[in-house]
């Protein structure tokens, strides 16, 4: 590898620019991190910026002492893993046929799917449906109604249809049917995009809680983000505290809010560094050659 000086300069510029952007991205997280270890007086006084003041672990002790938080975290991890696997399977099942050149009815089905991206009937019809299917208060209500994301389906379909057409033809000549071709050739070659889709699905499921607000009553089935949302948003609900007046509750301390944010965010953030291993370039090139 020979690098001339202008290329070195280019590298340096790129690294600096990326570094600055990263700084902007990471500072707020550090701020929340600092808040979570700080005393409430210091937070209210606006003294905490990037380093904890009045360092303490009380907030984290509170969280670890709250069995419902731990239970909720474990449930959420299980839910996210289950959802991601099922969602990925269903998306692959749809994306593969829709990416074939010669599949009668493809355009009708694809149009039907696209239309669903635009029409949102609102929460009441969705709730009625989940109720009729007897899924209320059931973890399935957090999986089935969002099983396939049309956006991700389109991405995957695009990726599948970019595969060299020669691959399919030669597979067919080898007596390889669609199922085997999909499993043996298409999927192994699509690991980067599958990893991305898994990430998007997992993060989506992790961050979404609106469905749980409506479908779930049993606190054992509360996703962690829903608990977090209630905690953080309730202290922002202005009108409510005015109306409740003398029966208003003391707001949840900001350090506890911050610690809960860390607690509910760090596990999902760790998914990406782990998935990065699948982002190996040039896999396809080798396959075509061989």
């Amino acid at each position, binding site marked *: 590898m020979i690098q001339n000086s202008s290329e070195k300069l280019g590298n340096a510029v790129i690294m600096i620019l990326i570094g600055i952007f990263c700084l902007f991205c990471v500072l*707020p997280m550090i701020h929340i991190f600092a808040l979570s270890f700080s005393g409430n007086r210091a937070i209210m006084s606006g003294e905490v910026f990037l380093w904890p003041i009045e360092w303490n672990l009380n907030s984290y002790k509170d969280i670890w002492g709250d069995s419902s938080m731990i239970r909720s975290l474990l449930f959420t991890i299980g839910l996210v893993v289950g959802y991601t696997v099922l969602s990925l399977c269903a998306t692959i*099942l749809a994306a593969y046929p829709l990416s074939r050149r010669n599949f009668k009815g493809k355009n009708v089905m694809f149009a039907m799917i696209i239309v669903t991206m*635009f*029409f949102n009937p609102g929460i009441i019809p969705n709730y009625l*449906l989940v109720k009729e299917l007897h899924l209320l208060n059931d973890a399935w209500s957090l999986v089935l109604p969002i*099983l396939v994301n049309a956006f991700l389906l*389109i991405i995957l379909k695009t990726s599948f249809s970019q595969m060299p057409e020669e691959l399919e033809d030669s597979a067919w*000549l080898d007596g390889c049917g669609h199922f085997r071709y999909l499993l043996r050739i298409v999927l192994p070659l699509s690991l980067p995009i599958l990893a991305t889709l898994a990430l998007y699905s997992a993060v989506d499921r992790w961050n979404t809680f609106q469905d749980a607000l409506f479908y779930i009553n049993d606190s054992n089935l509360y996703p962690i983000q829903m608990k977090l949302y209630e905690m953080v*948003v309730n202290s922002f609900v202005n009108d409510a505290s005015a109306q409740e007046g003398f029966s208003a509750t003391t707001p949840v301390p900001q350090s506890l809010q911050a610690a809960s944010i860390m607690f509910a965010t760090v596990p999902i953030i760790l998914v990406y560094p782990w998935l990065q291993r699948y982002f190996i370039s040039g896999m396809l090139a080798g396959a075509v050659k061989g």
Partner: protein
Amino acid sequence: MKTEVHLNSPALAVAMKGGAGYWRRQWPLYIMMIIPMAFFIVFRYIPMAGVLVAFKDYNIFKGIWASPWAGFDVFKEIFSLPEFYKALRNTLMLNFLGLLTFPIPIVLALMLNEIRVHWYKRVSQTLMYLPHFISWVIVGGMAIELLSTNYGTINQMLNAIGVPAIPFLEKPALWVATYVGAGVWHSAGWGMILYLAALTGINKELYEAADMDGATRMRKTWHVTLPGIKPTIIVLFILQIGNMANIGFEQPYVLTNNYVSDYSQVISTYVYTVGIQSARFAIATAVGLFQSVVGLILLLTAELISRKINNQGIF
């Protein structure tokens, strides 16, 4: 269509004929579609009857079907309100400016692709997607702490070095810039991941060939990398055009303030105020229906144009 080139391949010849040969070869595709299509029909099409609320004098206790028809009354009411047009205008304006930032994740991905220091690349990827995990409620609070004119951290720092305060949140033009900037900050790193995945699909031999020709870095990016991720770019661009009439609720809701409400009131916040908070479901549904139709038209238009120009689209 491209397929003509391959018509001489025996496999396709059989398949294209249709009839028994077609079915013998392609039946697994139909089996595969059963589960996904069942999902879309049950969970997307059945509840869609809910959009009828827009044409009803909706009574939640009677349900959608028993509520009396109201024809286009709800639409007439919406279209007679000047506030609605203001919200529509602001929505289109903010989304259009958002569209201008569409290339940023691509540029980030291309830049990352050039970095040869592996640990730096891995760490910065992870850091860049962090903002996606900070909810807008919290971003809104931090925006005021940092950017407010008289007490914001940034303006206090500017004052300290003798620069007059910048009213980031007060002047409509600056507020819009702040809004768009916050959007980029929140989602550029997240959107970049899709392009990174697409980059891995580019054939390495193409780079080797370009190296042989002595191509510079810029030329390689332009002639190899960009064409390699072009399909992904086109698909995402068309989908974003289709979303021009839609706007998330949280970002404008938390970033707005009382100086700029003439520019920050968008369809989602407007519907929240007049529809949801006042328990007028028909209004919320009718506006949603309007957005759906506009979005669908925009999407199809973008698709047709893209097919003409690039011979490629989402279909």
